[in-house]
């Protein structure tokens, strides 16, 4: 340690002899020594940047030129020198001067002639002090480096090397520097990673911007848009062609992508891909003046009118029949799909979606139903839609199938590959090989930017979707989240037979919308046919809510109780399933919808088909999520398409209210016993969860016999409703909820009376040791509404607990007493005074 305390000492003395002696003494002590005969020379040495820094100055006071005071002041006034300790050397008779020097800033003094031991001691402490200050300064300097490094990280100019020296320190600062280096390194790496993700994010941002700049009108079919713009109405009934295009196996792909990319990445990837596909498909539809009427999961149903509404100038440009335009469109859809530049693919999932397309022709009804405050629903109905149902099962991936009517209309156009006949009808279909003639596209006239009033557009968008669309939250664009799918099937509206079918349907849909909306659900799809119609509603999305499954089942039960005005509608069948589903807006750049799609959608539809008319079927998961709220009938397992094994199904019968459930429990239990036994249970329930057998028996009316009471108690015991508590005189209710349920089932007056009887009996039976039951007595008197007695017992119970050292309960009892007395009822002044 001592070796560390050698330093560079500057001796300043005009006296040569003194210098010589001091020089010798200091060298003997192992120091490096410089000397100066006056203050000016000393200052030059101190300021010399080349020279070894001076650690201590030994300073004589009386010198020519610059004397000791002058030099001392110069040193203390210099930023760089002021930390150098200065030891004054003086004669004994100069102590006055020394005091002055100490005031100026000298560290210490030595009297001449200098005692070597004192010199050594003074130097040692001065050097130690100097070292400490140097370390302090170095520390501060290096702290400065770390601070600078932190600033550099902020300004992204950080150099890891800048902390090398500080990091070598063994103290906390060194550790800080090392930790900082490590963190800065991590920050750097993360930055790199972030940059890599930036490209991906850029894509996402594009998507989002696209979504935000989206016009609300793309939620409306194109023909409707044109009609609104031209201030005309679409005809309720018209001829044309229906094109149906289904992206095969997309639901399966959802699960694969979800696994590969995780949530919600998988949902986003799927949506990105499906949007690309739909964009391409819709472009063809609009190119041939068709309109996407509905999205059904990953399929679209489009209408091509023989005489589509356009503005007058361009009217008459359409020469090709709807069937020809739709067929040309269908062929181009297949080509477009082949040419899609897929942006999305994971290492495991290969994207190879195909589409099935069908074109059917004929007259169709077109309805707009529903409450515009909630959402308008577009409905297409008629013979072509029925044929479509038959065609769906006959198409393979990559094919275009046309019905006989379309074929007949444009026979010259088609090169036919093969004919396919429906198995359960007379319908014949043809697979198109190629088109012999080119059908030129006849796109819709362009509408001006934001041609339609936003307030009109909103009628086609569910309010929750509209809100989300405005809130620009990225999560909303697509997400995998839990939701319940409800499919409702109904019959009895036939547009061919009933000219008021559209009005009836509108009324019925509005009523259903109201019921579903009240429960927080939304109707997503409506499919209408003379043989039966169905709607698809979702709960949990787009409106986020708790207990969406309960709400779904509740809504379903309510939907079975339609008002009398809809009596012509019958045969309702409802299916409900819930789980994770792909939710969000999707579709093409020019036509979009909001969807909730997943395997549970399919299952709900299957359950709907399997349900008996007038009933609801739910799956196991929905049953489990809602079993507390509804009474269910458990049905035999059924086999559904898409599920390898039979599945358990349940049918909700009615909702059980909370009060109902408790009441039911009490009544069911009491019904099993004789009136006397019931009375025993009722009294027991008033005493509490645990009750004394002797008090119980004592409380029964006098006219009944005691032996019988004992027998009754034994009977109840054997039933398992009550059981023996720790002490044979004490019994308790086996089910914790039962005591409360029975108690709640009593009339108020009856309860109050029983509490009073119990309090009196307890007072009577515990004459010798009432202090043990003060709390119970307080409770019963309180429930008997004799407040002053209750306050009295709470006070006693509090004092008793205090005596026993149970301060927690003591304070609780006193608090009860206080609460009761301050409630003011039945209180006499003497209570207040206490």
């Amino acid at each position, binding site marked *: 340690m001592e070796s560390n305390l050698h330093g560079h000492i500057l001796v300043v003395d*005009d006296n040569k002899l003194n210098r010589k*002696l001091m020089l010798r003494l200091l060298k003997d002590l192992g120091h490096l020594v410089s000397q100066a005969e006056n203050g000016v020379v000393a200052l030059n040495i101190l300021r010399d940047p080349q020279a070894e820094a001076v650690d201590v100055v030994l300073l004589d006071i009386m010198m*020519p030129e610059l004397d000791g005071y002058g030099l001392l002041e110069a040193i203390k006034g210099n930023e760089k020198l002021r930390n150098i300790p200065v030891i004054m050397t003086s004669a004994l008779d100069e102590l006055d001067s020394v005091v002055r020097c100490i005031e100026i800033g000298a560290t210490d003094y030595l009297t*001449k002639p200098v005692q070597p031991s004192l010199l050594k001691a003074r130097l040692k402490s001065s050097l130690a002090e100097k070292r400490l200050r140097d370390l302090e300064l170095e520390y501060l300097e290096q702290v400065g480096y770390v601070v600078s490094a932190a600033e550099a990280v902020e300004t992204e100019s950080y150099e890891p090397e800048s902390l090398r020296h500080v990091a070598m320190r063994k103290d906390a600062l060194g550790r800080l520097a090392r930790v900082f280096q490590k963190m800065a390194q991590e920050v750097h790496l993360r930055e790199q990673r972030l940059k890599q993700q930036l490209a991906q994010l850029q894509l996402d941002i594009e998507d989002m911007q696209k979504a935000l700049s989206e016009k609300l009108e793309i939620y409306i079919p194109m023909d409707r848009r044109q009609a609104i713009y031209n201030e005309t109405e679409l005809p309720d009934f018209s001829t044309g062609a229906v094109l149906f295009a289904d992206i095969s196996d997309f639901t399966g792909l959802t699960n694969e992508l979800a696994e590969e990319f995780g949530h919600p990445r998988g949902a986003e990837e799927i949506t990105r891909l499906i949007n690309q596909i739909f964009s391409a498909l819709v472009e063809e539809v609009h190119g041939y003046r068709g309109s996407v009427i509905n999205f059904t999961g990953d399929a679209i149903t489009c209408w091509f009118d023989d005489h589509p509404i356009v503005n007058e100038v361009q009217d008459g440009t359409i020469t090709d029949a709807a069937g020809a335009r739709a067929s040309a469109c269908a062929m181009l859809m297949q080509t477009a799909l082949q040419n899609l530049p897929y942006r999305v693919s994971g290492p495991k999932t290969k994207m190879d979606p195909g589409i099935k397309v069908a074109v059917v022709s004929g007259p169709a009804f077109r309805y707009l139903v529903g409450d515009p405050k909630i959402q308008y629903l577009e409905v297409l109905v008629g013979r072509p839609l029925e044929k479509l149902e038959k065609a769906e099962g006959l198409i393979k991936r990559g094919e275009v199938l046309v019905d006989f009517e379309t074929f007949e209309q444009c026979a010259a156009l088609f090169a036919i590959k093969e004919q396919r006949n429906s198995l359960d009808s007379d319908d014949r279909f043809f697979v198109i090989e190629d088109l012999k003639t080119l059908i030129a596209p006849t796109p819709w006239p362009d509408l001006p930017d934001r041609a339609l009033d936003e307030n009109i557009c909103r009628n086609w968008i569910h309010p929750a979707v509209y809100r989300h669309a405005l809130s620009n939250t990225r999560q909303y664009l697509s997400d995998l989240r839990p939701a319940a799918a409800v499919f409702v099937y109904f019959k009895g509206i036939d547009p061919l037979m009933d000219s008021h079918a559209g009005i009836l349907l509108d009324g019925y849909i509005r009523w259903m919308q109201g019921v579903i909306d009240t429960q927080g659900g939304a109707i997503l799809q409506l499919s209408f046919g003379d043989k039966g119609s169905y709607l698809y509603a979702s709960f949990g999305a787009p409106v986020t809510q708790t207990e969406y499954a309960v709400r779904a089942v509740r809504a379903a039960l309510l939907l079975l109780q339609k008002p009398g005005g809809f009596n012509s509608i019958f045969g309702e069948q409802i299916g409900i399933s819930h789980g994770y589903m792909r939710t969000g807006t999707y579709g093409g750049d020019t036509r979009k919808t909001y969807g909730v799609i997943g395997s549970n959608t399919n299952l709900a539809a299957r359950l709907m088909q399997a349900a008996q008319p007038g009933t609801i079927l739910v799956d196991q998961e929905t049953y489990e999520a809602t079993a507390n709220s509804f009474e269910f009938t458990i049905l035999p397992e059924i086999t559904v398409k898409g599920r390898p094994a039979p599945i358990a199904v349940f049918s909700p019968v009615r909702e059980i209210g909370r009060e109902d459930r408790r009441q039911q429990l009490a009544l069911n239990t009491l019904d099993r016993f004789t009136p006397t036994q019931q009375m025993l249970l009722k009294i027991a329930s008033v005493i509490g969860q645990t009750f004394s057998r002797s008090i119980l028996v004592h409380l029964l009316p006098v006219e009944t016999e005691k032996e019988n009471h004992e027998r009754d108690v034994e009977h109840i015991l054997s039933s398992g409703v009550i059981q023996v508590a720790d002490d044979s005189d004490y019994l308790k209710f086996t089910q914790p909820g039962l005591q409360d349920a029975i108690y709640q089932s009593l009339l108020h007056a009856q309860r109050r009376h029983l509490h009073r009887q119990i309090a009196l009996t307890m007072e009577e039976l515990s004459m010798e040791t009432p202090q043990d039951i003060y709390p119970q007595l307080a409770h019963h008197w309180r429930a008997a509404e004799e407040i002053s007695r209750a306050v009295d017992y709470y006070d006693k119970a509090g004092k008793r607990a205090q005596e026993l050292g149970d301060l927690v309960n003591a304070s609780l009892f006193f608090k009860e007493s206080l609460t009761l007395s301050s409630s003011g009822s039945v209180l006499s002044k003497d209570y207040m005074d206490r």
Partner: protein
Amino acid sequence: MTNNAIDQNVLNNLLESVGGDLEFLRELIETFFDDSPGQFQAMESALESGDAELFRRAAHSLKSNSASFGALELSKLCKSLEEIGKSGQLDSGKKLLAQAEAAYRETSAALAEYINV
């Protein structure tokens, strides 16, 4: 070896403080011999010219140096001289200076003896 002019103890302590290096002590004493006449000369000329500061400083040095070697008498006289210089009343210094010069002669004789031993 006994001489009233110097305190042997001081001289011994000084020798001890430099590790008994007699050669170094001799060098110190020789420096004293070299410097001291100049100091006296300075005081004399200061008396003539009335330069009290010069007088004081020379006396101060001589006081300090003589004390180092245990020449307590000389040191005491020099201290008086220094005070005269400080007071500025140099007239009273002449006699005292003569006494100091006498003391120096004794001291130097004693020191010369000491280093020749």
